[in-house]
């Protein structure tokens, strides 16, 4: 059977604006992926354990509150603590350009700012999976 791409879509932190996360979830589904949607107010710990139990290929997070510099790297840190290096992690939201190099250095492979088409995110995921298909 073909290998399905599984993606965890999560909203870390307290920000309640989930329009973007929900639109992405639907777009990924329409691109044939299996999307585990975990909803609002997720701690980095919840995101990482869910990603393990669900055996996802991708973690996609969205933050509009400005807490990305704290929460995104924290997720990467937890993944590293558990020796997980084969999950593609991407983030999106209101993220100033100046912050992007730091997030990438922390291991966030793709950062998508307002106006990014969902097709670009789909293509990025398909082109950057860390696990063989």
């Amino acid at each position: 059977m073909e290998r399905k791409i599984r993606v965890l879509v999560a909203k870390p932190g307290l920000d309640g604006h989930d329009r973007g996360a929900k639109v992405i979830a639907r777009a990924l589904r329409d691109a044939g992926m299996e999307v585990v949607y975990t909803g609002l107010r997720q701690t980095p710990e919840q995101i990482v354990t869910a990603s393990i139990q669900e055996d996802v290929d991708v973690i996609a997070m969205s933050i509009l509150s400005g807490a990305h510099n704290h929460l995104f790297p924290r997720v990467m840190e937890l993944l590293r603590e558990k020796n997980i290096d084969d999950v593609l992690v991407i983030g999106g939201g209101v993220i100033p350009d100046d912050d992007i190099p730091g997030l990438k250095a922390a291991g966030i492979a793709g950062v998508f700012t307002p106006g990014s088409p969902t097709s670009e995110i789909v293509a990025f995921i398909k082109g950057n999976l860390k696990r063989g298909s």
Partner: protein
Amino acid sequence: MSEMDDLKAGMEAYEAGVDKALSKFSERKKEFTTGSKSPVKRLYTPLDDGNRQYTQEIGFPGEYPYTRGVQNTMYRGRFWTMRQYAGFSTAEESNKRYKYLLAQGTTGLSVAFDLPTQIGYDSDHPLSQGEVGKVGVAIDSLADMEILFDGIPLDKVSTSMTINAPASVLLAMYIAVAEKQGVPAAKLEGTIQNDILKEYVARGTYIFPPEPSMRLITDIFAYCSTDVPNWNTISISGYHIREAGSTASQEVAFTIADGIAYVDAAVKAGLDVDAFAPRLSFFFNAHNDLFEEVAKFRAARRVWAKVMKERFGAKSPKSLSLRFHTQTGGSTLTAQQPDNNIVRVAIQALAAVLGGTQSLHTNSRDEALALPTEDSVRIALRTQQIIAYESGATETIDPLAGSYYVESLTDRIQNEAEAYIRTIDDMGGAVKAIERGYVQQEIQDAAYAYQMDIESGDRVVVGMNKFQIEEAPPKGLLRVDPIIGAQQTAKLHDLRANRDNERVQKTLADVKIAAEGSGNLMPPILEAVKAYATLGEICDVMRGVFGEYQQKVIL
């Protein structure tokens, strides 16, 4: 009679001519639509007025059904309140920004709180990490609130606070600060958002389940009707529903359905409708389709007036009239070529003014990138001032009334909104419709369709999916110093060490007793606030009694 016949004949001749022309040159596109994707005809004429009766449906400003506005002189009397939503970092920083805004000519304050405050967590709560001071000011206790309004006389300024789930606590803090300034609660003017239903469907800063949340709201209605009579006890908000992706008609429909639920709850709690309804206020979005947005505001007034009169038997004109604040559409701003946002905001602000808003926030050009800088905020405010003083839009009342197009749009939005409200009624009201996920689903479907339209290019967003340029990353964005999380935590530790903790425990116990019983929660919350109990402590007591809401997601 003969005029109508002439008109019909003329219309036929015109259409025949168009058909002939179209056979040679087609129009720009097959289907023309509003910003919310409703079909738009080539031409609107008196034929579109149908049997509409002017006095019944449109009427006069300050009179039922308030289509033309809620005051009889509108902006000839005075302009709308220019109210810029602001707040970030610490109370000290925000206090400085408020003083700057007042010096620049804003006429009302609008307080943005950070997410921990909005969700009732203290700054040292584990979930607050990384969020303190980010999207607004961090308020943990009365001590922070005293700093926030330091040197701002609360009897001279009206203050709007974007606070929902813990609205009682923040309102209590405001009352307590005023008391220290020697200003009695009866003289306070302002608004708390206090609209929990839209938090469940669109904004996400809920704490408690619907039932106790509705009780907290009716407690505020009751308390303010006697003790803070000039306070707007709720700002029933379509803004966030639209931001979450709804259409214009859905914005009106779901907001008014929420309004109906609040009035219902208050009436069931034994309040007289005319005692609290005059203090209900609304909050809408303004998007780019100028005419559809103007029509939306006009339709909203008409729908609400009918609801209040026919459904609730309200008699006071103030109960019937829908007063509203407008904010320009945050989701319409682009991160690309951000200066273009100034133009978008100008069109949106004009729509709000032509639609008869009572107060207005104009977004800053850089808000798709970060919190706005002082320069950007000034341009946004200047946009309002240019409309007020230079555009001429304020010289007469409801200047677009009588436009065949705008009146037709107004009717359409009213009809669509009323159809939604009937559907929601059939489900048992807004609370039930939200519990079922119906409202969320409708909004998400619209949001997804909107995004797909942008990606297919059917919807052009200038600078984003058309007319793009290579651009350098913007400079000089406002950043919140991450150190303030630690600062706020240190302040909290000091506070807890130096206050009268016995009094805190006693007042918190009283809040618990009130929460478990059925008495009004405002007085014990006010006492706890005055004892310097923190926001998190007070909310924890209520969490213990009320439980917490679990998000209802339908995808």
